[in-house]
């Protein structure tokens, strides 16, 4: 009778966790490859405009960024809500752009300087007045190759 009944064999064996590190490492490598490092902390809110005719920024090392937008909540007490310019991690005025471009240029190799691109990350609700001023400053400092950063438009 008791010949076929196993004693105490009802419990499941514990699941082996030996492969867990491998799985997590796989995830880790995926994220390391597919993402880029955050370079600056944004001080402004930016909602990029949408467009369809996009081209990718190829070489990250040759790109310098200019951010324009409404200051974030915590800075609104000091700066108000009018759109402001951010260069690197600091607030800036239109007049600082030429110095910024020169500094960015100095930091690059001489052979690469002519391939430099300025990426304008500007909130879509900004008025064109400040954007035109920035463009004029860029022209003055001969940084003519620009990229109006925008999101891909979703077709509906």
């Amino acid at each position, binding site marked *: 009778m008791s010949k076929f009944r196993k004693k105490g064999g009802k419990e499941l064996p514990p699941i082996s966790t030996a492969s867990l*590190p491998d799985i997590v490492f796989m995830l880790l490598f995926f994220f390391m490859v597919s993402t880029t490092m*955050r370079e600056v902390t944004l001080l402004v809110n930016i909602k990029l405009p949408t*467009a369809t005719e996009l081209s990718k920024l190829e070489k990250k090392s040759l790109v310098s960024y200019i951010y324009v937008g409404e200051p974030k909540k915590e800075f609104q007490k000091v700066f108000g809500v009018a759109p402001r310019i951010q260069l690197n991690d600091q607030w800036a005025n239109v007049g600082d752009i030429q110095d910024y471009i020169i500094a960015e240029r100095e930091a690059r190799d001489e052979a690469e300087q002519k391939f430099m691109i300025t990426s*304008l990350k500007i909130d879509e609700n900004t008025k064109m007045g400040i954007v035109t001023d920035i463009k004029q400053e860029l022209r003055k400092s001969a940084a003519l190759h620009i990229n109006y950063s925008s999101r891909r438009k979703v077709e509906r």
Partner: protein
Amino acid sequence: MARKTPEVPAASLADIAFMLLIFFLVTTTMDVDSGLERRLPQWQEQQPEDDQQIKERNVFVVLVNRNNDLLVEGEITRIDDLREKAKEFMLNPNNEDNLPEKEPIEVPFFGQVNVTKGVISLRNDLDTKYGTYIAVQNELVGAINELREDLAKSKFGKSYADLERDQQKAIKMIIPSRISEAEPKKAK
């Protein structure tokens, strides 16, 4: 006698990997940087008075006012219609008198081609919204890209992006991208 070293416990390996994973999740961003690529004109010390040598029929005037309305060649237009209008202007298929002139140019692969002299002039108000401005730019760039794509398809049977560099150059000669971003006129 050599003692066997005890096996290193691997149980905490998962925790360490998780920690690294979370670190990377927090410090990196997924977004790919992309946008409309443009070239600004050279800076000139003296702003030239309005170029009189460009004839009126050769200029496609796009005005965007402070209420984000569009005036294209003197007509109020919606952004959706802008692309078609720009394409018609650049091609001038029926050689009409009010659309731009053409001049014959020797182009590799194509031979003698009549190339348009048209220039698109985009002018905005100081209070125009940046989003609208980009939408308009997008339509204008889109019109030129579509024309180039059509030409590449009909001549080489391939998409413009897949062509050789000198083939692309030839197409660029036939359909030039001349969008002038004039600065808004300042009240004096």
